[in-house]
């Protein structure tokens, strides 16, 4: 066992650092640092820069135009990118749909859709959840009825992240209403510009427009857009979920956010001294740092194992739970650290207030982030669902 980076890994890290120094635009990293909302064009710009370097799809095999990095390389990149305040990569096309297409899609689908994901021609969103089907995803109701060379789709998806920017959505739909729940589901690619698709915004509690409802009213979808076999969609969806969970530990984000909390706590006054010297606060901070350092190693252990061929099963669930708990705790420390300056609200809805938060620490909207990141333990399979999986796998399904 050796926790230090090899010479090659160190060289790779330097390469990443240099790239971030030279190619990450200042205005983008400033926006991320100050917690400002990124415009669609900001995200597209960063994707294009990464794509130009061949680094947009670290997890894809080389044959599809990916970087095919190993676990350690991916970890290094995520950590460096987060510390440099790089925008986060929008995952829906790159790390959710692409692995499914690569494994289950037809050659024609791979050749057509994958390059468009890299080039940014398509912006994908994920249409899984419905009002009545959250944790119990298999109870989904959106219908697709085969009619000659197309399907006719009716129903509603919800919580669709960044659906307002998307032109494409991958959906789980019910193609066999008589089969057992999991067996009548198919995986469909739907063009959002088709007549009958309507996107309605949902405003989250921090004022952001991040998610949407997507309604389907007699939407015609070519049969060619069915991925894999009809009624086998559940298998593909589960495959996708394991990918969704692998980088959900968010180690890089936690490290960046922890560094920011420390910076604030050194600047903030508490009883005439820096807050970081306050025993109660310092203890909270130290404990979370201890946890994070351990979790970073757990993360590496698990992804190395997955890279060596082991499927990230129950460990992915563990990482999801611990990773999100740690991140949420750091968000809590950040809002504590700024004291009364947690209260002002810079909403994207209120034009121009973004740079008006007057706090002396340039902390950004830490309280809004604290609330927004409550989502981390709800989506991607809630933490309760993950614990259910851990218990089921390790104790053989006994309740």
């Amino acid at each position, binding site marked *: 066992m050796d926790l230090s980076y090899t010479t090659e890994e160190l060289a790779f890290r330097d390469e990443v650092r240099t790239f971030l120094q030279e190619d990450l635009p200042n205005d983008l990293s400033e926006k991320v640092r100050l917690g400002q909302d990124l415009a669609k064009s900001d995200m597209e710009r960063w994707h294009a820069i990464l794509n130009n370097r061949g680094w947009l799809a670290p997890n894809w095999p080389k044959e599809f135009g990916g970087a095919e990095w190993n676990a350690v390389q991916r970890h290094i990149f995520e950590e460096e990118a987060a510390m440099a305040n790089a925008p986060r990569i929008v995952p829906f096309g790159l790390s959710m749909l692409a692995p499914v297409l690569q494994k289950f899609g037809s050659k024609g689908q791979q050749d057509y859709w994958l390059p468009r994901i890299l080039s940014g021609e398509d912006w994908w969103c994920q249409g899984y*959840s419905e009002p*009545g089907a*959250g*944790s*119990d995803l298999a*109870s989904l109701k959106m219908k697709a009825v085969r009619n000659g060379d197309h399907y006719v789709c009716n129903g509603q998806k*919800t*919580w669709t992240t960044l659906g307002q920017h998307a032109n494409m959505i991958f959906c789980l739909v019910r193609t066999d209403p008589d089969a057992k729940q999991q067996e009548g589901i198919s995986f469909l690619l739907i063009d959002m510009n088709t007549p009958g698709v309507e996107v309605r915004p*949902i*405003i*989250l*509690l*921090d*004022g952001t427009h991040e998610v949407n409802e997507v309604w389907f009213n007699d939407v015609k979808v070519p049969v060619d857009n069915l991925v894999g076999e009809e009624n086998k969609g559940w298998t593909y969806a589960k495959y996708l979920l394991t990918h969704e969970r692998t980088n959900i530990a968010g180690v890089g984000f936690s490290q960046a956010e922890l560094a920011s909390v420390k910076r604030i706590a050194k600047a*903030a*006054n*508490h*009883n*005439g001294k820096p*807050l970081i010297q*306050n*025993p*109660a*606060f310092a203890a*909270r901070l130290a404990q979370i740092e201890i946890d994070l350092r351990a979790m970073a190693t757990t993360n590496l252990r698990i992804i190395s194992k997955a890279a060596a061929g082991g499927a990230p099963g129950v460990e992915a669930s563990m990482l999801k739970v611990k990773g999100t708990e740690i991140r*949420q705790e750091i968000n*809590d420390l950040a*809002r*504590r650290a700024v*004291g*009364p*300056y*947690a*209260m*002002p*609200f*810079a*909403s994207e809805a*209120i034009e121009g*207030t973004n740079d*008006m*938060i*007057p*706090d*002396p620490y340039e902390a950004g909207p830490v*309280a*809004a982030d*604290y*609330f927004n990141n*409550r*989502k981390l*333990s*709800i*989506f991607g399979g*809630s*933490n*309760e669902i993950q*614990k*259910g999986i851990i218990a089921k796998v390790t104790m053989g399904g006994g309740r």
Partner: protein
Amino acid sequence: MKFDLTEERQMLQDSLRRFLGDRYTTARRNEIIDSETGMSAEIWSQLAELGVIGAMFTEDQGGFGGAGFDIAVVFEELGRAGVVEPFLDSALIGGRLLAEAGQGEKVEKVMEGALHLALAHGEPGSRYDLNHVETTARDGVLTGRKAVVMNAETADLMIVSARVSGDVADQDGIALYLVDKGTDGLTIQGYPLLAGGRAAEVTLDHVRGTELFGADKGYQALADVTALATVAQCAEALGAMETATALTKDYLMTRRQFGRPIGTFQALAFRMSDLLIEMEQARSAVINAAGYFDTDQRDLYVSGTKNLMGRAGRLVAEEAIQLHGGIAMTQEYELAHIAKRIVMADHRFGDTDYHLERFIDLSAA
């Protein structure tokens, strides 16, 4: 010992709960939050008529309450309904400081709902330290900057703390002044707050004020009114937590996944039970703070209560959201606002850690 409310307090509680339950809907409140002033003048005067403000003052001060339990009853109901109008800052803090200073005429107008006030005390560098004042006063002329001043834009009169003598962190040497809206040299940079309402950064550049408390009395006046405001804030959080737990309990019984109400999953049922247990603790803590208010143990109980409410509040807000799932993350759903009120209460008058430390000091003394 008696744990029932007096008849008058019970009546006030009932009428407030009825009025706010009918009028203060989520949609109405969201409209108010998005409005320019961040408050409703109509709601303000209707609540004043119901006696909300009068209950904050003693009979000597011209009101009909003013004790710890009067404050607790009023603010618990305001909290239950997630009211964003600045009763705490304008009426209670501002009004009680004026009353303490013997400004009876102005207090009368406050009780009628006709005079709006703001306390400009905290500064960018003070965080929660009450004694930290950099703003200076020379012959009644004030210069400095005040941070996150609640209700600054709406206030007709601002009460401003300034240092007449001593070091930045000395308790002695802080005086309080009255400053009229629109006085030369006064700049107000307003912004909305995450949990509703508005505040501002206030800059004073040679602003003329009228002395309200001299340099030997200012700190004590601030400490007294802050203690009272902390009780009010804790009661408000308690009311909001009641709403959060009630919404969560209902949702657990009605939301179905996997063919059954999610509240039938023991993993969730136990967590709901934990919330209910903590709610009893929270209620008792607020009763302690209100009941010991006029004793020499006031500060010990105020700090202990604020610490407990910070812990229980965070638990309730976070768990209520988690047990709901995605729906609680949406602005349209009542819980979203309520959860923000609960957590933001931790950022006023000293947070959980601040009051833990203060409790340690007081209880060791």
